[in-house]
């Protein structure tokens, strides 16, 4: 059973008011089944609309094929830590991080430990998909989860260092949140590696509304 750690507010675009969501940790396989049960139909609905609009597959949201139930197999690794933002509707965003064996690549902290974001995704109804005019229901979830990764990094004595490999569509989003793009990593299918340095004050978030 996952644990409720904290509550935070994000913007509900429909009502223009703040919505309260729970931050949950220590997710179980059952939680990931619930994520997939909740997100699967919504994901398929978006894919159907993209197909009907003749949007080229290369322009689809890049995480369209993810399956969180399959990713739950990583829960057995001792270094895997999971978080989710949960509303009354269900899971709104999920993040899986690792506390080892990743190390910083950014000067001057090369070789020091960091929290590595293995996977992070918001629910399909929170995706921004301009080609079918879809706007997110809740915004700010991705930023909040990244801040959780930073807080975990501080609590682990990694001084806020966080690293990740980004899908191409999200690179600019991370850059707007204080990450430095260190370029493609040939050991990770050429995905860009980005890193947030130590002891960096919180960066202003973009006003575009795009929040993955």
């Amino acid at each position, binding site marked *: 059973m996952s644990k409720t750690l904290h509550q935070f507010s994000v913007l509900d675009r429909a009502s223009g008011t703040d919505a309260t969501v729970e931050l949950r940790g*220590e997710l179980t396989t059952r939680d990931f089944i619930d994520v997939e049960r909740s997100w699967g139909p919504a994901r398929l609905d978006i894919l159907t609309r993209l197909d009907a609009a003749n949007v080229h597959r290369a322009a689809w949201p890049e995480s369209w094929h993810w399956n969180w139930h399959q990713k739950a197999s990583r829960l057995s690794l001792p270094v895997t830590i999971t978080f989710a933002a949960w509303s009354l509707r269900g899971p709104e965003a999920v993040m899986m991080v690792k506390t*080892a064996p990743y190390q910083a690549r950014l000067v001057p902290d090369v070789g020091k430990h960091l929290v590595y974001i293995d996977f992070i995704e918001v629910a399909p109804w929170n995706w921004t998909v301009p080609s079918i005019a879809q706007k997110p229901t809740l915004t700010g979830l991705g930023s909040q989860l990244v801040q959780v990764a930073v807080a975990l990094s501080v609590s*682990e004595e990694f001084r806020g260092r966080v690293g990740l490999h980004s899908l191409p569509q999200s690179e600019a989003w991370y850059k707007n949140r204080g990450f430095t793009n260190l370029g493609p990593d040939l050991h990770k299918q050429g995905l860009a590696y980005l890193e947030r340095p130590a002891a960096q004050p919180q960066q202003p978030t973009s006003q575009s509304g795009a929040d993955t």
Partner: protein
Amino acid sequence: MNTVPNPDRRQMTLSLTEAEMMALEALASKKDLSKTALIRQALRLYQLVDARVSNGERLVLEDDKLQKKSEVMML
């Protein structure tokens, strides 16, 4: 409530030789960690490697520049 998990911690006394303590202090300084955090990270790495080696995988170190590979034997 906490922003991140705050699991209960148990304490132990560790007995190390002078050389081991020096190695621990040097690594902790290099990695910018306390000695406790350094040992925690070392344990995680050991767990990670042991789980994968126990699963039939090999631990191999590779130097791209020298094009050299060597296997670390986990006996």
